[in-house]
């Protein structure tokens, strides 16, 4: 059992007035606190970086791995974003964990994985953990896969009630994570890599929200496409990738969203900044332990 959220909520006095306006709005007002900001990254720089790392590296790296590390490094800079709502209170997450959607090959459906303490991990470490989970899921060998299979066998009547009860508890109480199924709740940011080959150009993307309120933020990277831009008084063709951030005005305002997205964009467009981080689990555990003691 783990407690992904800190014990005490953010004091109301520290929540900006305008955010509280959304936070306390009655459901009858049908207020929509969703904010979406779209931008583009320099895909040529990111691709060149990934090609270079894949020339000499020990793990195949993709844009998804870069997106996770960039998001985690940005979250470290903006701790106020690493939080979620429980009822009408805001709780910070203890760790910088990133969740990612992936295609579960064996089940032919989407599933989630969680990269814990992603800001401490090198790209190779993140890549290794993701490949491990993708292969495990494809074979149906992981503990989570067995749990998913058991969950799937629950009759619809009970399934609906369990989901509703769990959703109610999760929305209103600071719950621990108990197992492999709900462990992915332990991160505020969900990343989606939709830059797969054959995907159509992405002009707009508004990801859904989960019924629980744990995934307050969603960051989606779209497919690469050429674009003509002006550089030094000349028109040149460059490759860009769209990047969309869905946020919640009860936690952040548009200025914070823009600043956060600007940092992620800068990291992905200047991917040399993604270097660093640890590969060995022992190093990561040591730093996590030391940070917890400090807190």
């Amino acid at each position, binding site marked *: 059992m783990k407690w992904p959220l800190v014990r005490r909520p953010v004091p109301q006095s520290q929540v900006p007035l305008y955010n509280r306006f959304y936070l306390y709005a009655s459901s009858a007002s049908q207020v929509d606190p969703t904010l979406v900001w779209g931008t583009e990254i320099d895909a040529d720089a990111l*691709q060149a970086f990934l*090609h270079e790392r*894949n*020339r*000499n*590296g*020990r*793990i*195949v790296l*993709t844009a*998804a791995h870069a997106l996770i590390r960039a998001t985690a490094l940005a979250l470290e800079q903006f701790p106020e974003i690493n939080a979620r709502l429980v009822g009408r209170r805001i709780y910070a997450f203890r760790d910088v964990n990133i969740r990612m959607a992936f*295609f579960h*090959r064996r089940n032919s459906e989407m599933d989630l994985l969680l990269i814990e303490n992603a800001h401490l991990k090198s790209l190779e470490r993140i*890549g*290794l953990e*993701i*490949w*491990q989970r*993708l*292969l495990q899921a*494809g074979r149906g060998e992981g503990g989570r896969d067995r749990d998913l299979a058991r969950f799937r066998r629950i009759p619809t009547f009970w399934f609906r009630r369990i989901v509703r009860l769990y959703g109610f508890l999760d929305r209103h109480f600071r719950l621990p994570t108990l197992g492999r199924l709900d462990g992915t709740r332990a991160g505020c940011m969900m990343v989606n*890599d939709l*830059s*797969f*080959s*054959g995907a159509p150009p992405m002009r707009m993307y508004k990801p859904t929200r989960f019924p629980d309120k744990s995934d307050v933020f969603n960051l989606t990277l779209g497919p*690469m496409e050429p674009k003509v831009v002006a550089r030094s008084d000349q028109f040149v063709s460059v490759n860009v990738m769209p990047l969309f951030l869905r946020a919640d005005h009860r936690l952040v305002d548009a200025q914070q969203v823009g600043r956060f997205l600007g940092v992620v964009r800068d990291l992905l467009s200047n991917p040399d900044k993604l270097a660093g981080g640890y590969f060995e689990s022992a190093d990561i555990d040591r730093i996590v332990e030391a940070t917890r003691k400090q807190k």
Partner: protein
Amino acid sequence: MTINRKKLEDNLMHFVRSRSPRHAAASPRMDLLETGLLDSLLLVDLIFHIEESYGVRFDSDQVNPSNFRTVEDIVAVVLGQLPMPQAQAD
């Protein structure tokens, strides 16, 4: 099961080329990583295609660029993991 290098290469080439019109021009020596043809979805599908067709299992630490750069590289890894009498050269 006897695996012929050429047949294995043809099988993997067919798998890659049938992925999308963009993949149709792939060749055995084409760098799949540099050209961006090998995304994570294709890589995972390719791994399981090999596993299901030839019984060769990849661990996550084998998902390294030198094993998956070209179809020729993948063929070499698959043949290298098969018991000796089964792997036949051209």
